[in-house]
């Protein structure tokens, strides 16, 4: 049976057709050709004497190089009275070094064809850029200067605080931001992973000195990875990395302690975020899922692709293509160093808030209780394998993916193993993952919208309903 399944995966569409119950495929539709092996990027891994990990992927072609540097320590490492300070750190990391002003940094990078992007997340902060390959030296020089010599000038920090406070207000007018913030609290409770953004209080309380201290604690070569992907020769690039980053010294003292793994599943209840004037309810269902390093991660990915992770998935077919409740529903697994989450989202017009939740609940439970068809399983696996290769066509995407793999504590060849594991996942494991993670009772429900609309609509489900601040 197992070998048959693997065989079927590589067969033409015509033979898959026989097993499925949907409308038959067109008679003259040509079959798929034999699959070509999808090559994963080849990563050369090294470690400098100061402990900096360097992952290089040489890809010839267009004359560009993408860089990403990830430094461990994100929202989960923020002091309890400074939640989200990592975001302020990422807004100010490129606003001056010992020898360059913010303007000089941005102009020198622009002359190299790049600009700097600094992102904060739960486990790490990432600084990335992509430059013309003729200007690699200039790009690396700036990156190295920022990472080793960021000075967080007082005036720049004061401006960044004001602007971050106002942009937080701006984001608070977006339903997706409000939903994500409450979902963080609902999923993780007091665990440090609950932080998704700074607060007005933490922004106001943070000083330039706080940023310098936090940065000094986190920005150390033995807790960082440099990834370069693009048009270069590996030996030359490694030499440049040594020149630019070899003098980076780790501070005395221990690195950040690891974040504990959250274990308590969220409450199966409705959490309402009041947003007056909403013409839709922003619905999100969330629960804990597998981490990337868990043995059932790939099985859960296949299950999710069948449930709501693709356009032809059950959820999208049901609430969009059949019922027209929503434009872009979907479900995804997201992973962090110490946790995974399964999130379903749908923005639905106010009048169909209740039937939408009913259908989402139905599709979660259907997946958890019945075995998918062979066509669904084959399609899901082929989709995940194919789109993984497609998503890694951009060098900046390869750099970001490798940086995240390193932060998650996995080896660089994870980038190729993923697809092999997906293709080889037995049906029984998909069923087990569906049963473990997908039952609707495991999920918390966050609903952003008009309070009366949401409360009236969701009352018949008999779940506890509370309005969140």
């Amino acid at each position, binding site marked *: 049976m197992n070998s048959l399944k693997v065989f079927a995966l590589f067969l033409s569409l015509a033979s898959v057709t026989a097993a499925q119950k949907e409308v038959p495929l067109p008679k003259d539709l040509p079959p798929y050709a*034999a699959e070509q092996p999808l090559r994963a990027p080849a990563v050369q891994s090294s470690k400098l004497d100061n402990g900096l990990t360097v992952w290089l992927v040489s890809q010839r072609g267009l004359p560009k190089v993408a860089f990403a540097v990830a430094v461990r320590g994100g929202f989960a490492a923020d002091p309890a009275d400074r939640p989200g300070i990592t975001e302020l750190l990422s807004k100010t990391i490129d606003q001056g070094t010992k020898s360059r002003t913010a303007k000089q940094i941005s102009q020198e990078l622009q002359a190299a064809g790049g600009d700097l992007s600094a992102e904060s997340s739960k486990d790490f902060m990432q600084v990335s850029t992509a430059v013309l390959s003729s200007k690699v030296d200039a790009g690396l020089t700036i990156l190295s200067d920022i990472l080793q010599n960021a000075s967080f000038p007082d005036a720049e920090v004061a401006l960044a605080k*004001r*602007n971050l*406070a106002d942009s937080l207000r701006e984001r608070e007018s977006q339903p997706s931001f409000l939903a994500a913030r409450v979902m963080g609290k609902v999923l993780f409770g007091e665990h440090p992973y609950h932080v998704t953004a700074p607060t007005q209080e933490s922004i106001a309380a943070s000083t330039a000195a706080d940023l310098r201290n936090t940065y000094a604690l986190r920005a150390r070569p033995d807790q960082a990875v440099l990834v370069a992907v693009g048009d270069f020769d590996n030996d030359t690039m490694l030499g440049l990395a040594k020149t630019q980053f070899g003098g980076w010294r780790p501070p005395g003292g221990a690195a950040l302690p690891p974040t504990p793994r959250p274990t308590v599943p969220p409450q199966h209840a409705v959490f309402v975020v009041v947003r007056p004037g909403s013409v839709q309810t922003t619905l999100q269902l969330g629960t804990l899922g597998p981490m990337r390093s868990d043995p059932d991660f790939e099985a859960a990915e296949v299950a999710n692709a069948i449930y709501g992770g693709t356009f032809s998935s059950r959820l999208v077919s049901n609430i969009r293509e059949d019922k*027209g409740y929503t434009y872009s529903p979907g479900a995804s697994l997201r992973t962090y160093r110490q946790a995974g989450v399964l999130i379903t989202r749908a923005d639905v017009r106010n009048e169909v808030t209740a039937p939408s939740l009913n259908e989402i609940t139905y599709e979660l439970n259907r997946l958890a209780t019945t075995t998918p068809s062979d066509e669904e399983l*084959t399609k899901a696996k*082929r989709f995940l394998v194919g789109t993984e290769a497609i998503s890694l066509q951009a060098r900046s995407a390869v750099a970001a993916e490798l940086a995240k793999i390193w932060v998650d504590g996995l080896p660089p060849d994870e980038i190729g193993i993923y697809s092999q594991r997906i293709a080889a996942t037995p049906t029984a494991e998909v069923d087990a993952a569906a049963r473990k993670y997908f039952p609707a009772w495991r999920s918390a429900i966050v609903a952003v919208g008009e309070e009366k609309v949401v409360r009236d609509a969701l009352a018949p489900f008999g779940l506890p309903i509370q309005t969140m601040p």
Partner: protein
Amino acid sequence: MRQLFVLLLLIPGVLSAQAGRIAFEQFTLPNGLRVIYSEDHSTPVVSVDVWYEAGSRNERPGRSGFAHLFEHMMFEGTPNAPKGVLDRVIEGGGGSNNGDTRYDFTEYIETAPISALDPVLWIEADRMKTLDFSPKNLENQRKVVEEEVRVNVLNQPYGLFFAIDLPGKAFDTYPNAHNFYGDFKDLDAAKIEDVQKFYEQYYSPNNAVLAVVGDVSPDAIFARVEKYFGTIPAQPTPPRPNVGESPQKAERRSSQTDKLAKVPALAIGYRMPPRHSSEALAAAVTGELLHNGQASRLYQALVKEKQVALSVDGGVNWPLGAPFEYNGPTLMTSFIVYPPNITQDHVLAAYDATIKELIDKTASQQDLDRIVAKMRSDWYDQLEVPISRASALSHAVLFDGAFDAVYQIPEDLAKVSPAQIRAFAAKYLVNTNRTLINRVPAPGEKGAEKKPGAGL
């Protein structure tokens, strides 16, 4: 109309090792379908882009948003391949697909492992032949599109006013000025006969371009394109909308209130020169000089030096395309979000000073070299990923008449001189050529009550 013999008009590919150049071929089928192919063996993947020269400018009064609603119907099946087949075949082949409606065209894109090449081309050819004109599917997609408008416009702060309302105020003729996402009364009025008529008028091989980028030989592509698309009959050349505008004579200002926003924003749009004028390249460079990244003049002046803005975005043809990807009238748009304790006048004073400097003081060659390096780098990003390369190649046919313009663009940009920038700015970046909309939180919203200086 059967084609027994296919005449291929082959243009030899450029195979030079010159930086940024990629092999390509172009040919035209007898039915008028223009085909562009770029061979790329970096991954065993194929990307397909088909565009039809019909966009929101082709909509008639009373049918705003119809081109986009129609785009959705292109995914709703045909008599041969009913609803659901397209996604099953493409996703089951390991790929994904999407569609985009713009002012001048509507495009359909797929990327999939090369093993799905035949089914993908078959699917595109199938929906170029006919559609399932189903009233039930139209009803379903009308609802989906209305949810799309809610999620992107009606339930969002700012409601894309810089992309929908600003052109509406800046232009006077219906094709350029109407709401491309569509008023609900117009979407509700659309009938299956409209779908049928639009399809017959615009969705023909002679009104389309097919671009393929992938891991397959040119011969293999020629054979397949001929096999799947060669028998689709050509149709009469569709009418083109009249997009002409009479010159703007005075600045246009208006204001809006926003029930959802908590922070005010200002949008400014200047009418731009035609794409094929000598000034268009200077416009593209100026737009980026003003808006591209932290090094840009508006970011430096408004966010950093004068501290009257939280963010500045924009450029020529922004946000619906690259600064050289337009056909009819377009704007250079600036979208500025500013702190609640700052007034529109403060923001404008800083903005006008930045524009004035561009006119009074010639930009240095160094300034230009920097932004042109960035634009070249951004353009390479566009060409890097096969699906966006397919898009760029096919857009070049529409906007520049030849696909190889994509390789010429960085070279042309590098020739723009400081004097050309200054002359462009002096002629186009003037108050009588611009439209402003100031959008502020509606009274009673928390953002509007915020005290100056709060949050420090």
